[in-house]
């Protein structure tokens, strides 16, 4: 089970790359969602046990996957969604003020 981890790393790096190099504000926010998704995937992955069942114990199961990372993943999803929403609201505001989505135009604050 190494491939999923590699995928997580690729997604994470891709997200970071998007954030630091793309000029479009919406692209940057998309980058953040990619990073966040990769982290959630990582959480689910580390909780997974081969041939385990979901942590809903209506019967007695042999192997049950770790419930804690799933709970953490839920929290992370919610937090990520909220942060994305705030970011997008700010993006809209910025577009109204500056008339552009280019990061390089946000230069009223400097020095």
């Amino acid at each position, binding site marked *: 089970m*190494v491939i999923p*981890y*590699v995928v997580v*790393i*690729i997604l*994470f*790096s*891709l997200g*970071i*790359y998007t954030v*630091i*190099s793309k000029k479009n504000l919406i692209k940057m926010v998309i980058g953040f969602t990619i990073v966040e998704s990769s982290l959630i995937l990582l959480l689910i992955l580390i*909780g997974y046990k081969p041939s385990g069942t*979901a*942590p*809903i*114990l*209506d019967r007695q199961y042999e192997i*049950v996957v*770790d*419930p*804690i990372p*799933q*709970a*953490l993943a*839920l*929290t992370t999803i*919610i*937090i990520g*969604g*909220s*942060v994305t*929403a*705030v970011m*997008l*609201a*700010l993006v*809209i*505001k910025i577009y*109204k003020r500056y008339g552009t989505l280019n990061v390089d135009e946000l230069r009223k604050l400097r020095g």
Partner: protein
Amino acid sequence: MSKINERLKKLHTIALVVALAVFLLVVVYEIHNLDNNSKRYLSEHYISEGVRETGAINLVTSVLYDYRAFDTLGEATVILTAAAILSLLVPVSKATMLGTKFSIIVYQTTKFSIPFLAVLGVHLIFFGHLSPGGGFVGGVVLSIIPILLTITYGVEFSESKLKPAKKKLVEDIGAIGFILLGLLGVVTGSNFLANGQANFGPGNTGELISAGLIPYLNVMIGIKVGAGLAIIFNSLIKEK
């Protein structure tokens, strides 16, 4: 000259990201080399004792609303914060939307699906401790109702049916209710947000009224999250 500069910058960025990826690969490689199967006694405890201790079959719910309920309070606060920010950025009075006329099928489907959504959401909330779902997911499903209303009928209609102030009130009541339910633990002589430890009568495992306070906490979080996301959506769409 500037072109070369651009290239160099791009190269720099890519090099940085590749270096980051390499470091993370090293981490994964190192972790892979470790034998860390024995270190999950916390989750093993949850799995073996969790149902007995909390009364909830869905262990994720029992972690979210009992063992680590404090986290849930925190993330509920995050949603509330986001909702507060969005309603701050968009003043209440401006309620116009870029209108698009849909065909009659859309309106009918919306009308038709709203009861289903409501039932689904309530089911997810109330059976959160028994099956997948729970306050968060159910709340989000509930929040889709006003969103659908807004999309098909426009903001004015949606907000005349569900006033923003009401939603805000519901959200705050949800948050306060969560804390008050948590304080019940203190009242009964245990700790804050105590549930399994405070003996609220876990009931018969697998029944609807069981697992102590977890269903009620689920309800609180459900209405809170639902109202919060609806506020977030409406604020975003009202933004001129």
